[in-house]
């Protein structure tokens, strides 16, 4: 893709901040976030929308940013992992992941945290099945998921 010609200006809000992106409309939102805004917390694990490591929240919905053309971000509100904590204050999900071993190698963690945050915002007291389904779009190879479930369960309690 020739990134010099055919670029558009795309305005959006990312983690509460107004941003103007300059990119070819078909560039992946994942790449634009990482390379232009230097928000490297969002990761590429597969590039095909299977692993969820690239998860971001776009207009209130959790999406795989590797499948989102940046044109779709025009006028959108986007939250990445960098926007989850409030300054130094960790979100209770993040705090829970720390206490209960939800992260091992950490590469799936940004997407997994976002998925958990999104789940709890929609459903503050999910059942076991709802937690499993809510996180089924995020693959983890290290943990076997047990401590991730535990972290989410504990996060629900620490309101």
């Amino acid at each position, binding site marked *: 893709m*020739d*990134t010099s010609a055919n670029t558009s200006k795309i305005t959006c809000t990312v983690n509460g901040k107004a941003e103007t992106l300059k990119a070819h409309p078909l560039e992946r939102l994942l790449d634009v976030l*990482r390379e232009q805004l230097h*928000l*490297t*917390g*969002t*990761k*590429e*694990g*597969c*590039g*095909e929308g*299977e*692993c969820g*490591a690239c998860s971001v929240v776009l207009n209130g919905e959790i999406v795989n940013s590797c499948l989102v053309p940046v044109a779709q971000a025009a006028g959108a509100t986007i939250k*990445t*992992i*960098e926007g*989850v*904590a409030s300054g130094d204050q*960790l979100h209770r999900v*993040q705090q829970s*992941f*720390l*206490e*209960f*071993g*939800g*992260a*091992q*190698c*950490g*590469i*799936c*963690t940004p997407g997994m*945290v976002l998925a958990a945050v999104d789940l709890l915002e929609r459903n503050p007291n999910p*059942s*076991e099945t709802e*937690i*499993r*389904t809510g*996180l*089924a*779009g*995020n*693959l*983890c*190879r*290290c*943990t*076997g*998921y*047990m*401590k*991730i*479930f*535990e972290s989410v*369960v*504990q996060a629900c309690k620490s309101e």
Partner: protein
Amino acid sequence: MSCSFPALKCWAILSRPLRGLNKNAKTFAPSVAPFGPLGCNVISSMSGKINEHVVGKSAPRKEGRRKVTGAALYIDDLTFPEMLHGVTVRSSIARGLIKNIAFAGDIPWAEITVVTAKDIPGENHVALIINDQPYLADGVTNHPEEAIILLAHADKYLLEEARRNVRIDYDESPALFTLEDSVNKKEIIWGEDNVFKSFLVEKGNVDDVWESADLVVDGEYHTGAQEQLYIENNGVIAIANPAEGVTVWGSMQCPYYVHKALVKLFALPEDKIRVIQTETGGGFGGKEEYPSMIAGHAALLAWKTGKPVKIIYDRAEDMVATTKRHPSRTRHRTAVTKDGKLTAMEIDFVIDGGAYCTLSPVVLSRGTIHAAGPYSCPNVRIRSSAVATNTPPHGAFRGFGAPQSIFALERHLDKVAHAIGLEPDEFRRRNFVTEGQTTATSQVIREKVEMGQLLDRALKLSDYHAKREKFAGENPTSRIKKGIGFASFMHGAGFTGSGEVYLQSVVGAEATADGRVKILSASTEIGQGTNTIFSQIAADALGVDADLIDVAQPDTSSVPNSGPTVASRTCMIVGKLVESAVLGLKQTLIGSGLLQEGYDQKEFQNACRHYVAQFGALKTFSKYQPPPNVNWDDEKYQGDAYGTYAWAVYVAEVSVDLLTYEAHVQDFVALQEVGRVINPVLAAGQIEGGVGQAIGFTLFENVVWDKGRMINNQMTNYIIPTAADIPPIRVFFEENPYAYGPSGAKGIGELPMDGAAPAILSAIENATGVRFNHVPLMPEAMMKELV
């Protein structure tokens, strides 16, 4: 060592065994709650009390905060000024001559740097064991996706177009794609007989037994390839030039392996090569030796362009081109008495190594030694070999040969039990090895081993007998068949035999000017918790807070060679060296008069500050010493194969749907004796993660091959378990301290990979009455037998 140590004092501290340990097995309730009904127990986090023993507590992950906030920097998160991207042009055939390489298409080739084998300053092979694998194929290719040439440019999109426009002409030769064809020598594709390595292990004489045996049972078992599927793909950044040498940053498990390989590739002195491990998103063995290859490639492009070069694989390339678990075929012949005592075991174990030798001899070694399991048998013969095929070389994956041979053994012993009319658990009870008895390599077990008790406890925890009875009653009238099965096994920790002596691992500890302690080791944090447990071990040894301990980033210019992060050795072997290195710091400080015995943390910190101010840098080093009475014969493959073993029984409950032929694991119990649990959350995390991968190995992960190439090299059709698929994994530990491990710990990283496959297939047999003998076991295969 390739780095210089400006230490004033350098101590070689002997690894001291723990004396006066309570040698009785101790059990404790899990401090990690199973994910079952909500409202389970809260795990107590570490209290803030100073000098309280931190080993045994779930100290928080050292680098956890940056991982949960997205601040952790993995290799693809880094960019350097003027950095170029690099890509690899790969073979599209399995075997043959490379006749011509042309640069076609409407591509500005003049702008693109091309590196071929001719550009290699040193030797064109990846230094490992036999050194037969080239960095770049030179005139001949031996497997699909073999690296032929490299391209670099600043625009990664242009580079991808360019890669597709390289036209290579080949003269194809007949190739081998299966283990069977290789063993049968359909073609000779490597050496004189396709065999990278073979072993023969003998105990007693099996040939004397067959004739008079009450019963002889044969069986054949197969395991397929498995992709490690770390969620972070392989990637490196290299800077290289003749003046300064070569520096590589990257995702890796073993910086010193990469270092050794680059020394040969560039024909440079050791101190001109520097390798730095960046935050690594999973390894599992897939980043044990492969990083040497990708690092060399990036470095070669950097050398030629004079600019930093980044190579990052996308998922499809990583899956198709890099190492996988060795496929295997195991044949068993077993003689038993009519009351179920093993009298002879003959085992033929073959693994498919792919096109080049790489690590196959070591994988074969471990698989061979584990092939006869935790059982006492007076006559054993194990013949094993690693053979060549024209596929990308297979490599390390957690378990490293043991999951393959243990799968076969446990399936076979179920068959033997059935043949003599004994229940699988009763048969095991009659044959478990105990203290004072010998293994297949004639190693005398010198620790208390109570496999019978472990088995009893595991069966109780899983409600095994009651469930078997219940399912037997319900199954006949149900479309969903349920079953429960177990596997009993052991796993040796550390390098085999004389391996640890050969490695001569070293760990350093530094007391810093600001009163902190820094651990200098080449052991990498790849998610398993290296940084955290090293801090705990050091803190405990010094009687200070774990917060006072820093673990240096593994950088070959500043840490000694502690050996690779493999073989379940990081806690047990290297952790022990961490302990003795910091004890050396303590000794020095006390010896200097700046610190008195019975000090508190403040005094310790002040002593560090004053020492450094007065005398300069304070670093101590500790070098591996083997425990006494470990004798291993490399020629005959006899003796003490491992310093110690962890012992385990895993139980799987499954359901098999006779409409869809899907098998689901409904519950999983993992019970193991591990010496000492350093950090309960991390230890349970290791078991849970390993069991998850092993469930994948058993029921989900099927590599589909076409002429030596993996054709389902995408996450969409190479399936690993998701949060929706995984059963509750209930982890339980027992502790029988190992005298030579830190605080008594044994290695556990690979153990959890061994038990799930045979336990699950045993459960499926219980559910359906059909004995399957291969993994992965896909619904299609079940449908064939169950329809």
